């Protein structure tokens, strides 16, 4: 018997997706009826042949995974990283037997438990106690096993008081804590986890990571999908990077994360916006904006190349760039100069700006490019057209995810002072004060 517990060989997964072709978007009632009849005929014939029903006129094959080969040895903790849609979840679904591969094969030795979601199968009408048993059974625990760990689960979730309350009355935090507590007490030989740590408050997340690390140290084989690069770096020795359904890197976790981050810079944050013909320039306006992220946190820079075009006379103008978060809250404004530096005559202008970004927490950020003659006189605004993504945490060593309730920006550095000799005594003093009088 070899030491390999999971072996994937030429694994692929194909989905069929439908499109509505451009010429089919008729408006006339006659055409709508004709199309309806045609769709009905097609659906009926699909059904007769036992095929899947697909909405739209054009059917396209989509390979979520293609030619995946890897081996995982007993006791390895492997991270799987990649952008959204890279095929991570599909891979986990195949390994946990939820769906079958379209090509290739997988060999698995040992009992697998998969955790693709926290609280799968929780029923709102049932109490916390009942849901622990239900969820445990769904995750593959025996009733005896759950009974044995019940107290531990409840203590971990910190919901003793609400054990007999239906979970529909729980706060979302309690719900998630209970759900994770059950999952954390699984003891399979192979554990497959998908991004479940992105829930709960920071304190609880830390606890969850600790529990996962513990599991990994007990010689279990763990497969972890995460967007949290620090967690992958810390918990996994090996990581697999997926991109567009293929493995682009398989090796040491540190190199994998670097590889992923570098790929990231090459690919996505480069954004170009071209002025659409439907929006003509009145006096002065942006004709083209090109923005790229360069460097790594905390020294990353948004390099902007801006083309402006003026068609009429106007008062001299200057530009500003706002950085906004996902929900459109402005975080900062970059103003190269407050002097109007674009002269108010027709012509073309090319400006290159390097915006030194502050240390940003991971997430998607959008921009607003503004040009005007005065802070109250706007000539043109390009909003939400250029976005970039920050993947790595700016805080060295941080493994627990960032939550937005602590803001989007962290300081570049935090000075730390300790007072010699006082901390030990302080603890002692607390301990002796905290003791109950006898």
């Amino acid at each position, binding site marked *: 018997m070899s030491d390999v517990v999971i072996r994937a060989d030429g694994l692929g997964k194909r*989905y069929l997706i439908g499109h509505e072709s451009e010429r089919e978007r008729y408006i006339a009632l006659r055409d709508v009826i004709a199309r309806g009849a045609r769709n009905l005929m097609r659906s009926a014939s699909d*059904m007769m042949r*036992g095929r*899947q*029903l697909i909405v739209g006129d054009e059917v396209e094959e989509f390979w979520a995974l293609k030619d995946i080969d890897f081996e995982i040895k007993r006791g390895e903790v492997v991270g799987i990283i990649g952008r959204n849609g890279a095929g991570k979840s599909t891979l986990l*679904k*195949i*390994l*946990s*037997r*939820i*769906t*079958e*591969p*379209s*090509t*290739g*094969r*997988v*060999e*698995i*030795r*040992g*009992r*697998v438990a*998969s955790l*693709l*979601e926290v609280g*799968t*199968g929780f*029923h709102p*009408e*049932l109490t916390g106690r*009942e849901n622990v*048993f*239900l969820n445990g*059974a*769904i*995750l*593959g625990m*025996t*009733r*005896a*096993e759950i009974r044995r760990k019940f107290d531990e689960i409840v203590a971990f979730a910190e919901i003793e008081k609400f054990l007999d309350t239906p979970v529909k009355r729980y706060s979302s935090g309690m719900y998630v804590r209970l759900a994770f507590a059950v999952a954390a007490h699984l*003891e399979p*030989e192979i554990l497959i986890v998908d991004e479940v740590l992105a829930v709960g408050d920071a304190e609880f997340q830390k606890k969850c990571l600790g529990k996962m690390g513990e599991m990994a140290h*007990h*010689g279990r084989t763990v497969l972890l999908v995460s967007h949290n690069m620090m967690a992958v770096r810390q918990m996994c020795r090996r990581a697999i990077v997926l991109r567009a359904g293929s493995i682009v890197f398989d090796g040491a976790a540190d190199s994998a994360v670097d590889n992923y981050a570098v790929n990231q810079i090459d690919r996505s944050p480069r954004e170009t916006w071209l002025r659409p013909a439907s929006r003509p320039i009145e006096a002065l306006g942006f004709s083209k904006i090109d923005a790229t992220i360069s460097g790594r946190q905390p020294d990353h820079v948004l390099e902007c190349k801006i083309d402006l075009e003026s068609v009429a006379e106007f008062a001299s103008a200057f530009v500003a760039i706002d950085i906004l978060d996902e929900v459109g809250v402005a975080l900062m404004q970059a103003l190269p100069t407050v002097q109007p530096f674009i002269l108010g005559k027709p012509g073309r202008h090319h400006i290159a700006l390097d915006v030194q970004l502050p240390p940003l927490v991971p997430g998607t950020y959008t921009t607003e490019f503004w040009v005007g003659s005065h802070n109250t006189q706007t000539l043109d605004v390009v909003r939400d057209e250029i976005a970039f993504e920050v993947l790595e945490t700016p805080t060295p060593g941080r493994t627990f995810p960032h939550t937005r309730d602590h803001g989007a920006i962290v300081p570049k550095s935090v000075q730390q002072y300790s007072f010699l000799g006082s901390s030990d005594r302080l603890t002692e003093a607390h301990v002796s004060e905290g003791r109950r009088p006898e």
Partner: protein
Amino acid sequence: MNSFDRLPTDGARAVPIAEDARSTASAGAQPERLLILEAGRTERNYWRDLWYYRELFAMLAWRDVSVRYKQTVIGIVWAIVRPLLTMVVFTIVFGNLAKLPSDGAVPYPVLVFAGMLPWFLFSSILSDASNSIVSNANLISKVYFPRLIVPSAAGVVALVDFAINIVILFAIMAWYGFMPNWQIVFLPLFVVLAVLASLGPALFITALNVKYRDFRFIIPFIVQFGLYVSPVGFSSAVVPDAWRFWYSLNPVVGVIDGFRWCLLGGESQLYMPGFLASLAVVAVMLWLGIRHFRKTEKTFADLI
């Protein structure tokens, strides 16, 4: 100093190792096996897997039962009201207005109720099971287990209602002073038959329903027509002899006749050729249902 330090650490580490041994022992009933996942490959250990997941089956069934009457005012009484009212209406329509004959000396309400018992069992399994996979979509797309568990667990709810109904039947029989005969010992067999008869088409439709939601609308029709096509409100002895055999190809006919034979003692006779035909139809449908279900269950997560 150093050795003192190490002692408690070793002791502490011994605990998880012991735990490991225990958990392997609990899983040890089933030695580590090689699992191969491949396109179109049918699982060789399917039935053993099904047995392995029996606790999940029990939990899902228990969940469906305990959630069924939550947040209703009269709760479990619904399980009594529904068949009781149906019985009253059927007795009036078929017994009093249409004046159809009963089996021997059996009071008409008892005849109706004895037929309704398996019919409700059949129809609730059919309709609950057919929608079960779709309504448990979140489970199907997130966890693996033999999918057969879900529709079967939905059937348990119907069995609980059935148990309540049978108590009502005995109450009605006592009210009319009607005593069952020795045949009643065969009742459990016919309950199993009723479950199998419904499971066949139910599994077939469940699998189809995942792919084509049309079946969600077809099921209520089947249930509605079936109530009149099957001998629920009347005795199947009413059917002309020339038609009796063909009539029995409806598997529910065999089930209901069997129930009446058990419950009503010697008063209603079992028509053997018809009953055997019903059995054969049940067996074929069950085979078809399971086969189709197993063939398609691996794609459920993709289609749901």
